[in-house]
């Protein structure tokens, strides 16, 4: 009943709810972070402000992990393979950049790693899904 009916699976409902809470916390954290930064620009503790949006993001990550662990075993395998590919490929790409940087490659912006991670996740998901299709 859980997987083949058109109704959203119960664990997905929980996941969406938790993700919404996490992302709302993240947005509030970003606003709080900006507010505190501009009101305490010279505080030596200003770098701790980064924790304000990061803590709700950790909750969102735990929601994603719970969602994956509640999935059907094959779907879970596909997701885990895609995530493993994404993590390793992003790590190795970033590491490889260190070599090309010395050869005059353009500066690598930290946010690129995030976009790259999602791109690799999509590639991994496609190939993993195709394997079991």
């Amino acid at each position: 009943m859980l997987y083949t009916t058109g109704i959203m699976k119960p664990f997905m409902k929980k996941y969406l709810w938790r993700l919404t809470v996490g992302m709302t916390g993240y947005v509030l954290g970003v606003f709080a972070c900006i507010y505190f930064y501009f009101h305490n620009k010279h505080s030596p503790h200003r770098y701790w402000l980064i924790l304000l949006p990061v803590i709700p993001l950790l909750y969102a990550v735990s929601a994603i992990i719970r969602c994956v662990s509640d999935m059907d075993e094959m779907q879970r395998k596909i997701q885990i393979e895609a995530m493993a590919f994404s993590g390793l490929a992003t790590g190795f790409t970033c590491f490889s950049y260190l070599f090309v940087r010395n050869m005059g490659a353009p500066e690598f912006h930290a946010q690129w790693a995030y976009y790259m991670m999602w791109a690799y996740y999509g590639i991994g998901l496609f190939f993993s899904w195709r394997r079991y299709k």
Partner: protein
Amino acid sequence: MKNRLRELRAAKEWSQSDLADKLDVSRQTVNAIETEKYDPSLPLAFKVARLFKSKIEDIFELDKE
């Protein structure tokens, strides 16, 4: 790993979706098991065996090589 899942399902006149419902997995999982692209976990194999009132080894068989 070889299996007789498709044959057993057909004997009961169940669709892949029916079997997926009974096993609490997705239809894609049932399809992947039937086409031998995915080997089920031990708990799922037990579930399948229990559903068809058979032994695991009567449904699933390791490849010879």
